């Protein structure tokens, strides 16, 4: 079934949260029904959004207010103390910078390697194409736990643990899921365009660079966003590879707010807000590109 999906590139799925043209069709004048519909949609949305509201509210509360029962969503008194504490108590800028470097290098590596491989798997007719595609898909299904230990031993042997190398190097060799997504997209680029360029004597690298890459812009943006979000939010790899507090990413730096007996919930939530904002901003700006990635993950 999975291989079936490989055969035919997917028609671009409509962006589920950008189209609402077909909504008024069924609307009739039944106020009770309309109210019921809004209740269901708002109820559902609130379940997913409420934790964010709680995070924000805690971040702006004074300690006495945080530890009050019953909890209130609206702070009695708004304060920025928790945000000040974040910068005083942990090397926030250091962690932020470390995270930015890792995310940026991962994205750079992905951009260099993944589209090249996707191009080979879609637009160069060669014998190994299909077997290689199967291998790309198989690697997506292998549990990371199987490779985790030998990879750690390998980097340890190369004395590269406690550096960012193990965290960013794999992206420079292509990210299987993104290779697959880009390949699906490139399948829809018309061959005629490339054939014409080949007849004009353009080299394959030139065709790739000046025809295919510009055509693939939307898919590339999707790939960049996904790679960035993965690197930005990764927990397990920094946990395994980084030992020095000066090298921590935000993901593992946040634990600093947990003490032996108590947790500094205010500063922790303030730091969480700051840590979430970049991913959130990316999502708001590039909403529609997320859809491409989600539907590539659906593989009907």
């Amino acid at each position, binding site marked *: *079934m999975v291989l079936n999906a490989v055969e035919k590139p997917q028609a671009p799925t*409509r962006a*589920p*949260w950008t189209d*609402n043209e077909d*909504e008024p069709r069924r609307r009739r004048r039944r106020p009770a029904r*309309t109210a019921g519909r809004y209740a269901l*949609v708002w109820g*559902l*949305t609130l379940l*997913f*959004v*409420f*934790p964010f509201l709680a995070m924000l509210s805690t971040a702006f509360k004074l300690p006495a207010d945080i530890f009050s029962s*019953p909890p209130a969503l609206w702070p009695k008194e708004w304060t920025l103390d928790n945000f000040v504490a974040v910068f005083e108590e942990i090397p926030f800028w250091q962690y932020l910078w470390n995270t930015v470097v890792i995310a940026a290098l991962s994205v750079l590596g992905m951009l260099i*390697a993944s589209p090249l*491989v996707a191009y*080979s798997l879609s637009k*160069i007719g*060669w014998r190994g*194409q299909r077997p290689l595609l199967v*291998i*790309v898909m198989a690697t997506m*299904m292998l*549990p*990371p*736990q*199987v*490779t*985790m*230990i*030998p990879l*750690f*031993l390998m980097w*340890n042997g190369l004395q590269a643990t406690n550096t960012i190398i193990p965290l960013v190097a*794999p992206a420079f*060799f*292509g990210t299987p899921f993104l290779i697959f997504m880009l390949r699906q997209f490139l399948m829809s680029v018309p061959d005629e365009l490339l054939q014409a360029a080949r007849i004009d004597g353009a080299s394959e690298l030139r065709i790739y660079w000046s025809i295919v890459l510009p055509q693939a812009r939307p898919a590339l943006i999707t790939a960049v966003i996904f790679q960035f979000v993965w690197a930005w*939010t990764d*927990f*397990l790899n920094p*946990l*395994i590879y980084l030992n020095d507090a000066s090298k921590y990413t935000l993901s*593992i730096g946040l*634990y600093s707010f947990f003490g032996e007996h108590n947790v500094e*919930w205010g500063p*922790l*939530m303030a730091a*969480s807000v700051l*840590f*979430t904002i970049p*991913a959130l901003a990316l*999502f708001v700006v590039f*909403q529609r590109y997320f859809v491409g990635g*989600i*539907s590539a*993950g*659906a*593989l*009907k």
Partner: protein
Amino acid sequence: MSLMTAKRGARRQTLLGLAFASPFIIGAAVFIVWPVIASAGYSFTDFNLFQAPSWVGLDNYAHMLQDSTFWKALANTLFLTVTGVPLTIAISILGAHFLNLPVRGQPLYRALVYLPTIVPIVVGGYLWRWLLNTQYGFVNYFLGLLHLPQPEWLEQPAWGKPAILLMCLWTIGGTMIIYLAAIKDVPSELYEAAELDGAGWWGRFRFITWPTISPVTLFQVIVTVIAYLQIFTQPYLLTQTRLNEASGGPGQSMISYAMYLYQNAFVFLKMGYASAMAWVLFLITLVITLLLLWSSKKWVHYGSERS
């Protein structure tokens, strides 16, 4: 074109194809093929990182049979899979129908439901620890308003796994959006025909929506099963006691297979035992995936292609 030039052309294409794919070919050799082979090898050794691995045959695999924590972790993981996967599918399908209701501002609600999936998982983990706080957390506050029992979520063995499920279900927006696209693709003629036959909402769902979206369900079930079998970060964060250590909850009620594997590898430095555990996990995943694919003949409908 003569045979010679055709052959030369094919060869040129192969070289080009290999050249463009070379990053992945090299990467797969270094980061996948070699580690997979090495991992199989380590699984037959006793290896603590400081001394050379020594061959112990099947000892690691035999040891699992007597290791009570291993069984505990496996049972916890299977429990989470068996409860979490149906919940994920059911809530995603239900939620997708809600998000498809004709209301003003549809795109906004869809985006908001998807939002939790892009939050750093660490933030999600600590945030849920706070929300589930027995005394000051919002979850128990709302349960109190509804006159429901207010459990000590992360301190009672019976409530640890529901806490993990709650945190996981918070991030099912992606699955919901996939289902939303799937139910929008169901041809409306089918519903009209069913309505003429007098089908109610359940009949329409049971005999039209469910079979039409079943290929999506198959894929989502497989992906979700794999994710639950490998679950690590959520229970780790909810029971973390130090940066590099997690307790696994009261009475180890929250320790997952992948957590125990991590513990063996990086806390106890039993690299051989952890490698053997990784292979057992791989085999379990493979068997369950194949069973699901095999069962799919009975419940997945591929529309006109196969009927």
